[in-house]
């Protein structure tokens, strides 16, 4: 079967914890599988029986609406049963350990566990101990693999390829799992990556990964094929890293004026939720360059692909 499709590989992972451990072939395989699932969203009946009879637990210890909803809808479209558990509705607040909570979920015969956690490595910890598939929906400042996959999917869809493109990631890189997963994925697929932001949030240390670092957004914008803006995480900023919102906008915000520097076919991406007027001006977020809503649509297809592949392997 595989012989007829050169380049296609066999998927053997029950878990998706990050992009760092994936090969370029595996990443491309997920993106190709997502093509098939994207098409399901355009059918009259947007549901396929692929994961019928399986149970997915959305376990979000850190708040999230869009990622959780996207996983939930993806699972429903694959005919899986879905349970949502958030930090406040779980017994974590009563002092139960993560491992005990997870073992209880497994005792209920959950097949797939989607985990969002504030501690880096929490999904790995559970993946090593559970028979169920574990899909990371973001852990601490480690990785957010499905976000990066949907970003890659969107770039590939709009530009036809990823290799050779110049991608700028702007903002709070130091604390960003989205940035980390994107860096791993983009480099594996052959893109040039430039990180942009204040030196406190984008230390030169990152150059060791094989990316460029810049503290001057005006130098980077005219050459970029893709600009991925990260949300300024007010809730996580500590004063020593961050001078203030006003200064950030002045130095790094993608304002109307700065957007004039962009190439006509440059893509503007943002993982959401956007802070209009902070990292991006409203006119730019809603403008021609923006593929922010396409990212949301593609996120659904990519998550269907990930659930299908990992959930199909686990049994």
């Amino acid at each position, binding site marked *: *079967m*595989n*012989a*007829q*499709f050169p380049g*296609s590989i*066999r*998927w053997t992972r029950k878990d998706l914890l990050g992009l760092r451990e994936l090969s370029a072939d595996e990443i491309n395989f997920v993106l190709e*599988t997502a*093509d*098939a*699932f*994207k*098409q*399901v969203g355009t*059918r*009259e*009946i*947007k*549901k*396929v*029986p*692929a*994961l019928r009879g*399986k149970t997915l637990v959305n376990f979000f210890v850190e708040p999230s609406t869009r990622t959780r909803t996207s996983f939930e809808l993806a699972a429903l479209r*694959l005919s899986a049963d879905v349970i949502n558990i958030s930090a406040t509705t779980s017994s974590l607040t009563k002092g139960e350990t993560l491992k005990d909570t997870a073992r209880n979920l497994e005792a209920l015969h959950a097949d797939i566990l989607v985990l969002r956690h504030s501690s880096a490595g929490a999904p790995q910890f559970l993946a090593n101990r559970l028979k169920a598939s574990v899909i990371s929906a973001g852990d601490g400042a480690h990785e957010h693999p499905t976000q990066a996959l949907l970003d890659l999917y969107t770039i590939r869809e709009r530009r036809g390829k990823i290799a050779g493109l110049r991608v700028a990631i702007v903002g709070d890189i130091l604390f960003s799992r989205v940035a980390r997963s994107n860096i791993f994925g983009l480099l594996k697929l052959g893109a040039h990556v430039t990180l942009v932001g204040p030196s406190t949030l984008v230390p030169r240390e990152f150059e060791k990964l094989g990316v460029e670092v810049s503290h001057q957004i005006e130098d980077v914008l005219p050459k970029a094929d893709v600009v991925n803006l990260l949300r300024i995480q007010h809730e996580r900023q500590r004063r020593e890293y961050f001078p203030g919102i006003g200064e950030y906008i002045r130095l790094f915000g993608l304002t109307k004026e700065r957007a004039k520097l962009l190439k006509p076919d440059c893509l503007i991406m943002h993982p959401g939720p956007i802070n209009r007027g902070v990292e991006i001006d409203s006119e730019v977020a809603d403008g021609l360059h923006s593929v922010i809503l396409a990212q949301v649509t593609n996120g659904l297809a990519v998550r269907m*692909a990930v659930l*299908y*592949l990992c*959930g*199909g*392997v*686990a*049994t």
Partner: protein
Amino acid sequence: MKQARQKTFGAVVPIMDAETIGRALRRIAHEIIERNPQLTHVVLAGIPSRGVEIARRIAAFILQIRKIKIETGIIDVAMHRDDVGTRPELPIVRESKLPLPLEERTVIVVDDVLYTGRTVRAAMDAINSFGRPARIQLAVLIDRGHRELPIRPDYVGKNLPTSGSEKVKVQLQETDNKPDAVWLGREST
């Protein structure tokens, strides 16, 4: 890998070659023309990957015979199978492409080998998720018997009585990069 596969295929009997495959598909094209007076309503929906190629060839014959270009499509069955997780290998999903809307149309499902009928059932489910065609028909190059579901083909290139331990191998130039051929082999061990 390749050697291992040859080995399990055991003694091989040639069943069809490029010429007989061509004749069989041409005959199917004639039968489709006969049975469907409104040819422009017909869609040939191939099941990847050889079904897609066979559908393309039948459409080419119909164009040759009647000068009518009928529509073709691709129907992915992987995500509609009832055995995900029970097979050692996860089926690769591919994008389905059908002309829409399906209402008023006759969708002819096209595949290389008809065996248990489970793939065809999955294909019918997949088609129904796109809409409600006026009718669904089935065309196959080889019918090897052993149905597990109440499904029968409308157009058959060749009926090939087989035993359960035998394997039918179809190879087409476009999908396999080797000359057209059909073989019957016995699984060794």
